[in-house]
């Protein structure tokens, strides 16, 4: 079943790419969308059969491939990767749906888009380090081409920069994997085997550092972020949706799965540094966003800030904060995808994203009132207003991280305040006031333009009100990932049995904090 998630889009990509050039451009989109919907349907079926209380890998598939190299085709899904796979399938559909009907070279475009989706799913499902690396690298090619061919004026520069940065990221990740194999003396790269290795602390720290920089580029974290704003600004709207919604998550997923998963001891040693790194990333991203006048760049820098929260929660590594990482990844994926979609509509209608040019877009008849309203919903969600998924994700991140890194958490919370600052600046400049002369006669917005953002807005609100639906798959897996301190916790205070998962999470977080206090006392 897992192979289907990878190979159905690949099949779709091949079919679309080699279909005779007889159809109108939008027909290829329909064809691509059919494959995206089938894959999404399959992922939903998979979710319905997923056993939530089972922490390990499920639906495992294994085929021998290049055994001499330690490369096997081994797939599996657990509570961490399942939600990300679902989000990838969902946003692929959104990206295809929101692509321009009359796009140039549609067969190549939709083929590459489906290939990108397949590679990302493959990376989330891979249970062999080299297989993960392969998928991790394969997704670069379609994305590079998608930016380089269908991007903006400086697309060549942005695509090349993206490629160089992320290729270096891949090299560092691969170096870490090879280092692990070399130092442990085993060239079996299956995750289950590798995770059993124990290395001296010094070696762990070195290998982990390679992974941190490698995945840190992908996330991206300061100071490895500079490729992201350029890539976003030059990428078309659907590419920005994929980039912010899914591609960045490969970085955080990699950090959690391989950085934290393979080197938990070294992780604990450098965790305070990671938390401080998160603070720098959050505050830098937020302050840089304030300085932007390009709406898309502002949202891009906001991504850097919001991904910093994920690193903070990972550094704290409490059961609650680790649940928070997953929640924040999903939350950011949905919210940033929605914001990029809306900025895309503004750009396509007004012809500019410059906050010095575009004003008064909430004008009821000549502006973009519904798009503006959705933008308000989006920025409120991003700024963590209660009732939306952004709030609960950030709340769980901060609640989980505060007992371990109180100062860093408080500084990151300043970042959420700054989110409100830059997004209010955006709203105030672009949407309030009199419609500027330059954009007085905008073309009409169709329901097709609005539909994807409305869909994501509904999802953001529903998951904000019912966050259990978000945590239900990942909770068991992530709790099992939680560090050894749980044993200390159990000794410190016995956990009474609770049924409600939310209550359980809160209790665990309370206990972790009491454990931290107990450890400090010792």
């Amino acid at each position, binding site marked *: 079943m897992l192979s289907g998630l990878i190979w159905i889009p690949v099949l779709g990509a091949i079919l679309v790419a080699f279909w005779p050039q007889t159809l109108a451009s939008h027909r290829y989109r329909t064809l691509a969308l059919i494959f995206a919907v089938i894959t999404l349907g399959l992922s939903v079926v998979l979710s319905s059969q997923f056993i939530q209380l089972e922490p390990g890998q499920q639906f495992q598939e294994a085929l021998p491939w290049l055994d001499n190299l330690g490369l096997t085709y081994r797939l599996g899904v657990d509570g961490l990767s399942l939600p990300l796979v679902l989000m990838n399938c969902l946003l692929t559909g959104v990206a295809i749906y929101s692509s321009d009907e009359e796009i140039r070279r549609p067969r190549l475009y939709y083929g590459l888009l489906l290939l990108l989706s397949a590679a990302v799913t493959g990376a989330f499902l891979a249970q062999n380090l080299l297989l993960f690396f392969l998928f991790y690298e394969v997704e670069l090619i379609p994305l590079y081409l998608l930016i380089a061919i269908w991007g903006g004026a400086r697309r060549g520069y942005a695509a090349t920069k993206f490629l160089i940065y992320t290729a270096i990221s891949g090299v560092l990740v691969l170096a870490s994997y090879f280092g692990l194999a070399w130092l442990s003396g085993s060239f079996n790269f299956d995750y289950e085997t590798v995770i059993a290795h124990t290395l001296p602390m010094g070696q762990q720290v070195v290998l982990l550092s390679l992974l941190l920089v490698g995945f840190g580029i992908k996330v991206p974290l300061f100071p490895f972020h500079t490729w992201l704003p350029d890539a976003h600004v030059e990428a078309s709207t659907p590419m920005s949706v994929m980039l912010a919604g899914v591609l960045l998550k490969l970085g955080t997923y990699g950090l959690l799965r391989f950085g934290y998963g393979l080197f938990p001891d070294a992780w604990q040693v450098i965790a305070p540094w990671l938390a401080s790194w998160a603070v720098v990333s959050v505050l830098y991203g937020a302050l840089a966003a304030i300085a932007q006048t390009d709406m898309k760049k502002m949202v891009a820098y906001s991504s850097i800030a919001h991904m910093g929260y994920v690193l903070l929660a990972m550094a704290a590594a409490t059961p609650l904060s680790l649940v928070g990482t997953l929640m924040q990844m999903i939350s950011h994926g949905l919210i940033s995808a929605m914001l990029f979609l809306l900025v895309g509509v503004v750009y396509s209608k007004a012809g500019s994203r410059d906050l010095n040019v575009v004003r*008064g877009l909430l*004008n*009821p*008849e*000549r502006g973009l009132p519904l798009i503006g309203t959705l933008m308000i919903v989006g920025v409120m969600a991003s700024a963590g207003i209660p009732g939306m998924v952004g709030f609960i994700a950030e709340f769980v991140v901060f609640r989980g991280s505060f007992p371990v890194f109180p100062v860093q958490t408080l500084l990151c919370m300043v970042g959420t305040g700054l989110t409100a600052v830059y997004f209010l600046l955006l709203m105030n400049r672009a949407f309030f006031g*009199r*419609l500027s002369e330059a954009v*007085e*006669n*905008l*073309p*009409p917005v169709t329901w097709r333009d609005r539909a994807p953002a409305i869909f994501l807005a509904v999802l953001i609100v529903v998951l904000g009100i019912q966050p259990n639906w978000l945590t239900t798959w990942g909770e068991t897996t992530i709790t099992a990932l939680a560090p050894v301190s749980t044993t200390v916790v159990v000794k410190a205070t016995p956990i009474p049995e609770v049924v409600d998962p939310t209550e359980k999470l809160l209790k665990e977080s309370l206990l972790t904090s009491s454990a931290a206090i107990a450890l400090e006392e010792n």
Partner: protein
Amino acid sequence: MVSTIQQPSNHPLAEYVHRLEAGEALLANNQINVLEVVGILKSYGIVLDAYSKNLIYIADHQFLELFPFFKYFNGEVSLGKLLRFWNHDRINYEYAEYVMKTMMWHGGGDLDTYLDSPEFLERAQRVMQAKTKNNWLVSSLQRFFPDFLPEQIRQLAYYKVLGQFWRVMSDMFIDLSDRFDRKEIQSIAEVVQHVQDALVAAASQPLVYAVEVKGQVYDIIPESAGLTFLMDAAVPYVDTIFFRGTPFLGTVSYNAQAQQIPVFQDQFTYGALYADPLPIGGAGIPPTLLMQDMRHFLPDYLHEIYQRGLRGEDDLRVKICESFQKSMFCVTTAAIRGLMPHPLDTEDPKQRQANRVYLEKWMDRFMTSRLQIVNVPDRY
């Protein structure tokens, strides 16, 4: 020998001075403008008919009613009408009241003077006594707040006068549309001439107001007060609604303390000729109400023009407002020409100079208006 050739005006809006001197209108003459102006005045005429009837109904039949719940029903209260009202299937009579209050606030003409005269107060007292007799609630209200009821009657007088004014205007605009349909009107100059002729014809029509209380008729504005249509309703109306107006809430943020609103009412420039059509469609602003009413009665030829626009039906009310503004420049042209100190075709250089000075004074008022914007061809 004294030259009879007049030198060109040096006014920044000299182009429009010369246009008016040549017998043309403030609005450029072209086919689209004619269609827009006549079409919009037709729908305006239909709406004004409803407004006029309701204003007169309120003045006559809701006289000093403390709780006029059904004042917009024109005496026909039924469940069906109430349901349609709640479903917003109705005319926005609130707009008419907004205009009435704006007129009352700015005053002007002899009506304003009359309503402050002892004669009016005496007549008001008489009708108040008749109305409040055996009504302890209203009579005690009058005892504690003696200025309250006279002010209400002043306001009701404005209801009546505006109702009478719009009655004439409504008929004039419908007649214009009928003449256009008969191909008797084909240019902007002919539109202006039609309006001017109708204003002149109704100029001396008396403004009167009488109410019946308990079977007896009381004159509030008698014919003997000498109030007439042109000087006491039309001229103050043009000055108030076309030029001064009021800052519409919600369209722009005005900060009175920062002197963004003039201290003196006669310096206001918030009237229809100055209004920015873009905020139309926003909730809570009076022009939206008028445009919303007019959109129901657009003639097909005008509707088709609007549908050809980039946004089609989406920005209909803004387009209606733009056409409406054009039409109001035509009505203003008629008013300016009707009030000219000397005939337009006079040969006397002194009279021509006097006309020039008169027109340039009007142009001073147009400096910040949308006169030049409405004359930009194919703006949208």
